[in-house]
């Protein structure tokens, strides 16, 4: 995977601080799995957390907390692990997205949102992300992003004002940047879109339709 487009530093810093939404963190973590240089940046940002922790004003902790910890250690309490064993490598992307995406993308429930454009939902609650599937040669209407929104290419490719985006590439655009991605490969361009707000499918369709008719 030859990655050309990366999350920006503000995003990596916030991934490290713990402030990134779960959905955005899923995209960043997947990118980090494929990109050692962004991983090094995120590790640098974690050093800020380490420095803040070491310099913060200590607040006394009840001694019972240490007793409870030793009780748990003595009881051999197992670490809580995620319930589902991760599956790796679907769609050629690293975990966590690689393990979330199905082997067969057609098994998802896709519904049309515009000419040659379909969307599907992946995951639940805070972790939910949106999948967008653009037929070859089709364009997503010219639009900008209200909040913090990130896109990762899963398959196919698109080209917009910024450049060409291939699988593993991340579009992490500033809010004032408007773009018009055009699906430019022989197959559908499938991408994952995440935001730092809870996913509202009802809100998004009208927004896309609005930009279609350029309100």
């Amino acid at each position, binding site marked *: 995977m030859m990655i050309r487009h990366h999350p920006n530093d503000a995003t990596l810093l916030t991934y490290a601080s713990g402030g990134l939404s779960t959905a955005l963190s899923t995209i960043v973590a997947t990118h980090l799995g494929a990109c050692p240089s962004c991983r090094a940046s995120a590790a640098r940002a974690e050093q800020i957390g*380490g420095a803040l922790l070491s310099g913060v004003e200590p607040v006394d902790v*009840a001694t019972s907390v240490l007793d409870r910890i030793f009780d748990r250690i003595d009881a051999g309490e197992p670490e809580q692990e995620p319930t589902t064993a991760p599956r790796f490598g679907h769609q050629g992307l690293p975990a966590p997205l690689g393990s979330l995406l199905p082997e067969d993308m057609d098994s998802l429930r896709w519904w049309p949102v515009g000419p040659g454009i379909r969307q599907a939902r992946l995951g639940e609650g805070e972790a939910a992300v949106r999948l967008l599937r653009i037929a070859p040669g089709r364009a997503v209407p010219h639009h900008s992003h209200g909040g913090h929104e990130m896109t990762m290419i899963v398959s196919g490719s698109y080209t917009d004002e910024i450049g060409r985006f291939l699988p593993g590439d991340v579009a992490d655009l500033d809010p004032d940047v408007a773009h018009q991605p055009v699906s430019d490969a022989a197959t559908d361009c499938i991408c994952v879109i995440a935001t730092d707000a809870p996913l509202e499918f009802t809100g998004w369709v009208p927004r896309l339709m609005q930009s279609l008719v350029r309100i």
Partner: protein
Amino acid sequence: MLRVIRSRKPRVRVCMRAILTRTSDTGMTQDAALSINDLNGLLARVAGSRSRSAFRELFSHFAPRIKGFMMKSGTSEEMAEEIVQETMVTVWTKAAQFDPAKAGASTWIFTIARNKRIDIMRRVNRPAPDPEDPMFQPDPPINGEDFTQSNEDQVRVRAALEHLPPEQAEIIRLSFFDSLTHSEIAAQLALPLGTVKSRLRLSFRKIRSALGDER
């Protein structure tokens, strides 16, 4: 849930310099008590010989700091102690995974506490890359002194934090102590999202240049 807890208690504004240079009752800087090497050594003893006395020392250093860190965002004392407990249990069980060549003890423990806070507050595991994944791109070979977090490094990060302009220090604080998203910071400070992102980028760049990273 995070928001409810935050709104209950008005945030106390403390300037970054005060946070970083506060001294204990003895008049000695807290960190002078244990150096990074001391802390790394204690972690090595916990990992190697399952030393409870080493763990006690780690607890008395870190538990009050983790609690203080968490309470900066207005998190209740009870919740902060729960995060302390979960974090320190993980420090015990995962001590063998601590690699001083990758991060200092404070940074490693910061990342555990950050993840526990997310697990507890959002009831969802923080998405992270998985080095076991076949699609995971391993780090390039390290050349010599490349990424060892030394005492010097931590001093540099803290000095760089102290010298940030107030508006950048404020944003770092909201990101790390309060783990706010970009949009939440923008709303809280009544700033455009783009300004929040550029301040985060700028402050990160300053800290990285203090660490001698080429950017």
